[in-house]
């Protein structure tokens, strides 16, 4: 693989892998807390927040987008509570109604506003623009040591690397409180862990992952990566430490395999067009989960006799 690979495929691959890992890490804890739906909700609610932030500021940049997403999340929580109280509907349904409506509202808003000058449209919101995040000034592997070429790397790469690095670091530092309060919240708060802050922190980290990944890879990958790699990883092991490692491995595998299959798969089948990398990455993660359900070593525990 030579110059063409470095120029056209290296950065999209890296960004895809980093986005997948950034989402899979908090996804492990969301799933164990039976809050997988929250990851889904966040990735939907992010869209109207980002659109509103863009309409107000007129630019697509990280901080307004994060604030917009956070604002939208707060609005979503209020709406969910209101629906639960006034409509007397069970929480899952209230969440489902709220985040799909907000996402649809975001799509409408996006269609009606003039975003032609920036990379922000409906298609983008779903699939991102992974294939277009190329490294134009790269001339081969040697460009990795060329300062001028490095300065031309797509900014999404640095943003995604920073987000993934931050999330990995936070997971490492707060490993014990996260694990303890996920397993036994009552005990955790009795030994002095601020469990409410840990829960909130986890949701905020998931939101950071969603916002950072959203711009580069779109919401389809975000939703898939919060759930598929951790769920498949849980079936591979009975230790949380190993589960995290497996989830990172599956996220990486999904991103690489999905990207390659999207680019070359149709060619191999005789078609002449590539398919969406984001869509293929999400599909591969789903296939990995399906294989884990069929063949993974620790799937038998489901339905196993429990308790006395």
């Amino acid at each position, binding site marked *: 693989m030579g110059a063409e690979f470095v120029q056209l495929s290296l950065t999209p691959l890296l960004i895809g892998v980093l986005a997948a890992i950034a989402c899979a890490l908090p996804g492990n804890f969301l799933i164990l807390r039976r809050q997988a739906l929250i990851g889904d909700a966040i990735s939907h609610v992010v869209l109207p927040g980002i659109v509103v932030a863009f309409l107000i500021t007129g630019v697509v940049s990280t901080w307004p987008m994060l604030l917009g997403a956070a604002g939208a999340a707060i609005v979503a929580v209020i709406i969910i509570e209101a629906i639960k109280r006034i409509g007397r509907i069970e929480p899952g349904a209230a969440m489902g109604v709220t985040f799909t409506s907000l996402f649809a509202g975001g799509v409408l808003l996006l269609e009606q506003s003039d975003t032609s000058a920036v990379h922000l449209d409906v298609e983008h919101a779903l699939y991102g623009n992974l294939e277009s995040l190329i490294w134009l000034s790269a001339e081969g592997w040697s460009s990795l040591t060329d300062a001028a070429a490095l300065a031309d790397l797509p900014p999404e790469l640095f943003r995604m690397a920073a987000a993934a690095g931050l999330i990995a670091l936070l997971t490492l*530092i707060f490993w014990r409180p996260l694990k303890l309060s996920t397993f*036994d919240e009552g005990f955790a*708060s009795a*030994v002095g862990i601020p469990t409410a802050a840990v829960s909130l922190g986890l949701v905020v980290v998931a939101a950071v992952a969603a916002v950072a990944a959203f711009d580069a890879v779109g919401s389809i990958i975000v939703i898939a990566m919060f759930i598929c790699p951790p769920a498949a990883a*849980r079936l591979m092991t*009975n230790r949380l430490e190993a589960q995290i490692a497996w989830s990172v491995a599956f996220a990486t595998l999904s991103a690489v395999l999905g990207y390659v299959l999207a680019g070359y798969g149709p060619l191999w089948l005789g078609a002449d067009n590539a398919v969406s990398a984001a869509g293929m990455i999400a599909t591969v993660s789903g296939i990995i989960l399906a294989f884990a359900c069929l063949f993974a070593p620790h799937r038998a525990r489901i339905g196993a006799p429990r308790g*006395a």
Partner: protein
Amino acid sequence: MAIAAEPIDIAARRDPSASVVNLRDSPLAVHELTVSYGEKPAVFSVDTMVPPQSMTAIIGPNGAGKSTLLKAALGIVPRLSGRVTVFGQPVEKAMHRIAYVPQRASVDWDFPTRVIDVVLMGLYRELGLVRLVRRNHRERALSCLERVGMADFADRQIGQLSGGQQQRVFLARALAQNADLYLLDEPFAGVDAATEKAIIDVLKSLKAEQRTVVCVHHDLATVADYFDHVLLINVRKIAEGPVATVFTGENLQKTYGGRLATTHIDQLKLPVG
């Protein structure tokens, strides 16, 4: 109830100061504690003072607020009003002296972790965020498992344990905390006879080590055997004091209302005396 009137008088004459405890010494003193989840209070204006080095049972029907009382005392659920002191200090400042054993059914035992890792959670205050688990931590955790007869299960995944074994692992985690006050929520619920024996032996050894044990307990037949002090509640406090004077048919009738059949009370006459 007439059956219980006599034992109260006799015991009270024998030891009139049995339930007098100094606030400073009490491992757990609760003053006018009220907790509410919705509109109706779950615990209403409960006062109690647990005597030092006692084995205290909290008794009451389902929904009487027994578990809630423990959780609110620890600040796990918010208190609407009331004060809680532990060894004379506000409870927030004395949390390091308390070990709490939640109800076994309150956690997901399918969680991906091993028995030894659960026991090591008891060392969280010592280990903090980043300190590494060293051999001496591991050995201490193992010795706690030894004490509850579960050392051979250290490397098992917790999902493979029976209910009784799960309860013993929870107790081992509390032992690792090396606390002065042990608060246990239904430690005997749904466990086998061997586990019940193992747990009560450990609790009695804690008492022998000058520690204090408080259990939410549901099996009236074993109260007199296991405990020396009782707190009877049904949202409000009904009675509190030494088992010999307070654990009477009359008080139980007040606590359980119509829910305790008279035949049940007759059975209890034996242990109560």
